[in-house]
């Protein structure tokens, strides 16, 4: 089990680096991260199920200027690992699945606070860099950037460990305390979550024709899905 957490820490560090400090190649997106975490902890499909829902929910919050969106990477680390652990213990029933998705909001907000703290520490690093350059040390720019990158990577690795551990704890300790009937009642909230994700994309894709094409496509695909289910 220890090597799985070690792998989660390494992959988490890379994904967190991609989130802000390096490249922005979308390796930090929940679909990627939750699937990876699911695979690391033994059930890729379970992680991907969480990733499919989490991927869209936070898109409405854009990382514009100095604003920091909720940490959907952390939510995916938590959700992917929790889903994999749940599938190998109590089973990933709709109630557990809903609980994992809803509890990920706590992780997303905690990760956002840590992100804010890191950027405040970076202010100090930037000050030291500028002061060193003022003294004639041009190489301080490279050292300053390396320090910032190291801070982002180290924080990402710690968050990956904490959030995947939290996912394991929730699935192994918290969810089993509720019986199947209690978890089933929790599942009544599940349909709202993908619709929240769709609304997130809808709200950040506003053009004159958005409403028409969105709802027409929704009706057409809904009709197709229902017909398919009736015929099956």
């Amino acid at each position: 089990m220890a090597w799985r957490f070690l792998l989660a820490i390494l992959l988490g560090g890379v994904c967190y680096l991609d989130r802000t400090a390096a490249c922005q190649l979308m390796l930090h997106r929940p679909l990627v991260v939750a699937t990876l975490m699911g695979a690391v902890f033994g059930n890729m499909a379970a992680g991907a199920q969480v990733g499919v829902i989490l991927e869209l929910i936070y898109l409405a919050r854009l990382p514009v200027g100095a604003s920091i969106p909720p940490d959907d990477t952390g939510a995916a680390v938590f959700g992917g690992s929790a889903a994999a652990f749940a599938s190998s213990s109590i089973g990933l029933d709709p109630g557990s699945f809903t609980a994992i998705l809803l509890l990920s909001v706590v992780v997303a907000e905690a990760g956002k606070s840590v992100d804010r703290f890191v950027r405040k520490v970076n202010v100090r690093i930037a000050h030291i860099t500028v002061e060193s350059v003022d003294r004639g040390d041009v190489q301080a720019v490279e050292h300053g950037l390396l320090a910032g990158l190291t801070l982002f990577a180290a924080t990402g690795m710690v968050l990956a460990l904490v959030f995947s551990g939290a996912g394991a704890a929730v699935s192994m300790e918290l969810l089993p305390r509720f019986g199947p009937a209690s978890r089933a009642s929790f599942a009544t909230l599940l349909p709202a979550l993908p619709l929240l994700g769709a609304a997130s994309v809808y709200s950040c894709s506003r053009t004159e024709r958005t409403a028409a094409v969105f709802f027409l496509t929704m009706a057409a695909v809904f009709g197709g899905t229902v017909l398919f289910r009736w015929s099956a």
Partner: protein
Amino acid sequence: MTPPALAAGSRGAVWRRQFLLQGCWNYEGMQNVGFAYAILPALRDFYANRPEEALKAVKRHLEFFNTQPAMGALILGASVRLEERVAAGEADPRAIGTFKVGLMGSLGAIGDSFFWGALRPMASVAGALLALLHPLLGIAALLLLYNGVHLTLRRRGFIAGMEGPEGVVGWLKKAALNVRTDDRKLLAAILAGAYAGVFAGRFFVQGADAPHVLAALLLSAAAVHLFAILFRKAVSPSEILSFLLFAGVLILWR
């Protein structure tokens, strides 16, 4: 005075380093350290035997800087060209600061709207839909759809920037990012509609009678509309999820 030309190795180093523009993102200078780091190989070439001028040039780039990271490639390329002119005594060093400040806000707004507001949602929802078939297919779609455009625009922007400020204006006209933004937003809306339709069909339809199906569709559409109104009123997804979590706890309690 003719400055040494930018060596191919240094040009490559600047190109690679622009991916770390946000490596030391901070609340005061924002991308200032990252920008200075990225342009440093070019400054070392241009001011090879003039350490004091090199120092002044580095300080110029440690001023406040913030833009959308992918659009930073364009400004970086143009700044390299301007620095070359300054090193040759053909331009005023203050022109670089003015150029960067003048462009970072507008390019940031264009980039935020295109990359974060259109391309990323489109790639995300396409990936989420295809992940329903197979997770790896979804991930591949997300990464390829986003990075195909992202890396191409970064490369072309950097090359255009290296032609100087004139190249920037020409490239921005040619790239027509406003038209591309609307196209991607429309595509994202179509895919999001499909995503909502798939899940509404899966979750809501319990019975087989037509009125029930119609009610399920209307209820789903109303839920999406309500969430969209909440987003427009600056309610965050976290607040909605927290409310749902609270409702879930109440259900459990009952």
